[in-house]
């Protein structure tokens, strides 16, 4: 993108103009809905990044609340799979991982208290962080060592796993721990849990949409009547989404809008969809602290099970009956992840559970909502400090 386009999408007069419109529409939307504040949920870690990175919450009028939904595939990865990777790394199998999962805590049980791949590496485990599965494939081919790839991620990342499998690019010494998860099922799950105080608008995940297509979110409007905007990741993209949601609410006409048409199409990436379908079956799958969600995960089809690390190393996945709640007692991380509770609603927050002595996964992982709130003092601290010193 040109510098000029970026400048327009990140700042300047346009932002002020959209904000003016948002402030104008917000009270009308509240009137139409009959409830305040208007809860708008994003389902994407990168949208959440844009919102915090550019301080967009500090620009919202009081009628609008931006809520983070389950947009991080890393935080919802069950402890079982992290533990499995840690154990393999300590047994001399090389574990390739994306940086996100490198610090992700498991149960803390393997190896006498090793909680993450980062700690496993310090304890002598063989762990390598890569940017892409291509790096793992090349290094595994070159070095010939028994290796696994910890494949986390939503639909966006699934093609990175499916393509090498389908195209026969994987060397025989590299197998995959497949923990891919799907977003529409968890979105439904989240809406159901928010019935009391409903979500009024959805900023749909832009890069998930590149794969599944904007059409994947039709159900949000049709089944739940929630305005939905597929949005890009520049500040202006997110602000436009908020503006559009408020506009729809004030008119009482929920629609599905694709603001990110420069990248996302209605049908999505057919090639990638075919590869995922060829490689994997859709199965019921476990989410951290939440449990099994129907048809929310991917598992290798029989013809590709030779690439399944769990099969290769004789590790059996727990089924729904054997599922054990993988959060510590009293921890409300699952509700925080679903946007149903704020960290401050949890009785453990900053009492038993602090960044120095974390208790639940949301506090351990630095991207976890609780850790962010603990460090930043919750949503409004930056604005509070800014007001205090007379900045505006």
């Amino acid at each position, binding site marked *: *993108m040109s510098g000029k*386009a970026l400048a*327009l999408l990140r700042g300047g*007069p*346009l932002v*002020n*103009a*959209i*904000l*003016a*419109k948002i*402030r104008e529409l917000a009270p009308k939307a509240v009137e139409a809905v009959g409830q305040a504040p208007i809860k708008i949920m994003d389902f*994407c*870690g*990168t949208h959440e*990044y844009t919102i915090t990175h550019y301080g967009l919450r500090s*620009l919202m009028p009081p009628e609008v609340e931006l809520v983070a939904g389950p*947009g*991080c*595939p*890393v935080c919802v990865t069950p402890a079982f799979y992290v533990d499995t990777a840690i154990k393999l790394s300590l047994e001399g199998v090389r574990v390739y991982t*994306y940086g996100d999962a490198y610090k992700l805590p498991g149960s803390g049980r393997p190896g006498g208290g090793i909680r993450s791949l980062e700690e496993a590496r310090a304890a002598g485990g063989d762990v390598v962080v890569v*940017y*892409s*599965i*291509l*790096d793992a494939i090349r290094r595994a081919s070159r070095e010939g060592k028994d290796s696994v790839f910890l494949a986390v*991620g*939503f639909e*966006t*990342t699934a*093609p*990175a796993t*499916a*393509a*090498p499998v389908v*195209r026969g*690019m994987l060397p025989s010494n590299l197998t995959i721990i497949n923990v891919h998860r799907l977003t529409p099922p968890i979105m439904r799950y989240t809406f159901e849990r928010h019935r009391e105080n409903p979500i009024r608008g959805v900023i749909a*995940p*832009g*890069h*998930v949409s*590149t*794969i599944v297509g904007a059409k994947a979110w039709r159900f949000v409007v049709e089944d739940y009547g929630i305005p939905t905007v597929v949005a890009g*990741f520049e500040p*202006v993209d997110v602000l436009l989404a908020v503006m559009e949601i408020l506009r729809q609410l004030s008119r009482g006409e929920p629609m599905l809008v694709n*603001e990110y*048409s*420069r*990248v*996302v*199409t209605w049908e999505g*990436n*057919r*090639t*990638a969809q075919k*590869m995922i379908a060829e490689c994997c079956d859709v199965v019921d799958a476990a989410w951290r602290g939440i449990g099994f969600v129907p048809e929310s995960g991917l598992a290798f089809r029989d013809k590709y099970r030779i690439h399944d690390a769990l099969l290769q190393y004789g590790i059996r996945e727990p089924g729904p009956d054997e599922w054990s709640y993988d959060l510590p007692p009293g921890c409300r991380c699952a509700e925080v992840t679903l946007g149903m509770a704020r960290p401050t609603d949890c009785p453990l927050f900053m009492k038993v559970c602090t960044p120095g002595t974390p208790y639940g996964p949301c506090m351990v992982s630095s991207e976890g909502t609780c850790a962010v709130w603990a460090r930043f003092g919750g949503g409004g601290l930056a604005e509070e400090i800014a007001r205090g010193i*007379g*900045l*505006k």
Partner: protein
Amino acid sequence: MCLGVPALVKAVRGDVALVDFGDGVEREVLGATYEDVKPGDIVIVHAGVIIEKLKDEKLDELLRMLNEFREDLEKKADELLRSLSYPSEPTYGG
């Protein structure tokens, strides 16, 4: 989730494409995940994998629409005043 970064395709060799993330930041990525990737395409790369093409004309359309939106608003003086009064310029820095 899902960080995606635009990049220019420089070359394609089988399933792998060489892309430029801007000003000479070059890297090989997996291109098999998108049909018909060609040198010169602008693509979105996620975790070292091409997931979509960027449609330049759509971006131009958005930018044009945004500009019109801005001009439209600028015609309305009261809104403009409000839009300029918040947030104000920072009082520090050079």
